[in-house]
């Protein structure tokens, strides 16, 4: 058995590395995050041509038929180059939910894969913290349609999305898993308003307010009242994707810090000759290696259709815990070891540190998933 990549996966990894290395220099990203849109539609089209937007979609929807390992390969590249295109919101979350919701959504998946459809998931709410089942937004039935009202928090990629996938309560009490329904809502729908903003890591998000937004029953994704299982499954994939992104970002920070310690001279010698700095670099390196092993193992478990649900949940949680803790250590230490230069906007170091910090805050931080890990009963080995 080989834990390394298959031939096809290796080629994908090479193509991701090659493309981003060439087409995504840091100065280009700097210009993109200052632009009005916040990313490049041109780059997005290229992602489509490379097949990355349909990476996990079935072949009949024009996709590559990949799984969690393939997604992780792309996400690692996104982390390594701090890509700001809304790949996570449209492909990992949006396409992920469309796939979970059933085969009749294949045409939408195909559109998404061609780069003609962008999605955003409007799920979390101001009081939900990391609880997936906490949904206060209500969907009141009115004949053959629903009226949605509520407030969705920090919706990633909302402003550039064509449609929002909105979770709302069709029955049950707040924080109850049953009774949540997903609706596909055009961003232009009446009663839907956005308060867009930049995130601390240079991406785009928005607060979304729904004031009696009318949605046809045909726009429901999956089963009425039955969104919890879709959200949980998609969240697992999101955790592993974010862990892979964090691993990529950590790898980049490690390489920069290593190079800096070799070249920066003080007291007449490279600062990397000082043992106190060497050991801190080694601790960063080890944290990254352990997070990488966990992230890759989790992607394999999620990518294997025969995996048990309990193993999937625990591995995804463990990967996010390792990514969160290692990301914090590597990010903070990279800044510290770069000294004053690490504090500047000019160097990439701070930008990576900020992204790693935001990744920990997304879809549950390390403490949250450590608690979940403890609660999930271990499946017999």
């Amino acid at each position: 058995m080989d834990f390394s990549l298959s031939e096809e996966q290796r080629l994908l990894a090479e193509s991701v590395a090659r493309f981003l290395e060439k087409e995504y220099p840091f100065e280009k990203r700097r210009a993109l995050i200052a632009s009005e849109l916040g990313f490049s539609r041109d780059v997005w089209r290229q992602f489509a041509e490379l097949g990355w937007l349909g990476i996990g979609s079935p072949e009949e929807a024009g996709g590559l038929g990949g799984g969690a390992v393939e997604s992780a390969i792309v996400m690692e590249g996104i982390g390594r180059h701090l890509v700001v295109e809304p790949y996570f919101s449209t492909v990992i979350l949006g396409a992920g939910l469309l796939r979970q919701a059933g085969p009749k959504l294949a045409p939408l998946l195909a559109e998404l894969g061609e780069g003609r459809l962008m999605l955003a998931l409007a799920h979390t709410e101001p009081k939900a913290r990391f609880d997936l089942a906490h949904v206060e937004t209500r969907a009141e039935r009115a004949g053959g349609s629903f009226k949605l009202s509520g407030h969705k928090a920090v919706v990633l990629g909302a402003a550039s999305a064509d449609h929002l996938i909105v979770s709302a309560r069709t029955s049950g009490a707040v924080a109850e898993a049953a009774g949540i329904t997903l609706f596909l809502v055009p961003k232009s729908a009446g009663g839907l308003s956005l308060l867009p903003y930049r995130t601390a890591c240079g991406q785009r998000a928005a607060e979304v307010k729904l004031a009696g937004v009318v949605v046809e029953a045909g726009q429901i994704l999956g089963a009425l009242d039955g969104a919890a299982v879709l959200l949980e499954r998609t969240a697992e994939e999101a955790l592993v994707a974010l862990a892979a992104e964090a691993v990529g970002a950590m790898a980049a920070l490690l390489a920069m810090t290593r190079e800096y310690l070799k070249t920066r001279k003080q007291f007449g010698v490279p600062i990397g000759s000082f043992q106190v700095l060497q050991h801190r670099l080694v601790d960063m390196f080890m944290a990254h290696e352990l997070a990488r092993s966990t992230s890759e193992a989790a992607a394999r478990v999620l990518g294997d259709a025969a995996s048990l649900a309990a193993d999937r949940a625990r591995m995804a949680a463990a990967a996010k815990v390792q990514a969160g803790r290692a990301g914090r250590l590597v990010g903070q230490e990279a800044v510290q070891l770069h000294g004053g230069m690490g504090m500047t906007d000019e160097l990439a170091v701070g930008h990576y540190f900020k992204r790693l910090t935001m990744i920990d805050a997304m879809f549950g931080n390390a403490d949250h998933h450590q608690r979940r890990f403890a609660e999930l009963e271990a499946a017999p080995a």
Partner: protein
Amino acid sequence: MRVQLDSAHTAFRDEVRRFLDASVPRDIRDKVEAGKRLGKEDHVVWQRILHRKGWLAPGWPVEHGGTGWGPLKRAIFEAELGATPAPPVIAFGVTMVGPVIIAFGNAAQKKRYLPRILASEDWWCQGYSEPEAGSDLAALKTRAEPEGDHYIVNGSKTWTTYAQYADMIFCLVRTAGAGKKQESISFLLIDMRSPGIAVTPIVTMDGGAEVNTVFFDDVRVPKANLIGEEGKGWTYAKYLLAHERTGIARVGLSTRLLAKLKRIAAQELSRGRPLGEDPEFRAKIAAVEIDLLALEATVLRIASTQGAGKPPGPESSILKIKGSLVQQALTELLTEAIGVYALPYQPEWFEPGWNGEPVGPDYAPSLASHYFNWRKVSIYGGSNEIQRNIIAKHMLGF
């Protein structure tokens, strides 16, 4: 193992687990599970059981009694063996001097020593550290002066684990030569019954005496006991450090300690509820379990990418550091779990044959001693700081 294996390796793991589980003699299993002190005989009995199955030295070449398993199967076996409540295989023969003899020994040395290691007829110990050469191992002073077809050895070795049981010791000794201090070190095999050898135990803080100082006073050692060439001992020692890279993580042992910790946490009470439900304590268990999972995934990743002829990188240092930290976290939590019953010190309880009533729960008497004793794992075999130096050298070249 929680990290996923394919069906062929799952079947292999199950086969290994079934055999190991059925093969540990009851009395030995009881001692290990309780944390009682093991005697030489306990180790020998268990190693002979493994040898009869052909599994004592899985990493050796098949012609010398190995299994022919690849690195991944060996890592799976190591984890299962470590998780079995049985004495640890004494590494000095099987995983330390054995591979060096195989790689650098002559035909006569292979013929003499390898079968005796497998049959547990020779108990080996390691003569590396000296009172003035710890982390700076290459500063060692024990001298071997040629005299006819013998060396005359003078000096001392320390921290020598189980020297009191040993038939043989493999030593790094200073021989003739100029230049770098590493270039006059030789690798010598010495019979522990030679006249002029004296063994003095060192009592450690847990009350045990598993380490010793070994004194050499004009000890005559046949030149036939030199491994390879004079002056190449440092190279052979480094080969040894990079060999058997994955076992050092001790995933199996930590898996067993984690299960024990959960069992005890379910029985101990905190504010009237099981300690295992206490949010702070549960968080500590989960943190170390997630670290163990990461360590295990790393072992499997290294094992599956380990190719023949690939120069060893910093892998074994990573596994040594993280493995020791996980083991130490577990022994610390085990001591924390028993609360005030960490206090009673009952040295007689450790002795085989003592049938008295222990103070406190029956799982408690060994735990604090184990915690104290296990501080050694981040110190021995190249301290974690030395391991960081090794990794840094790989990364920076300084």
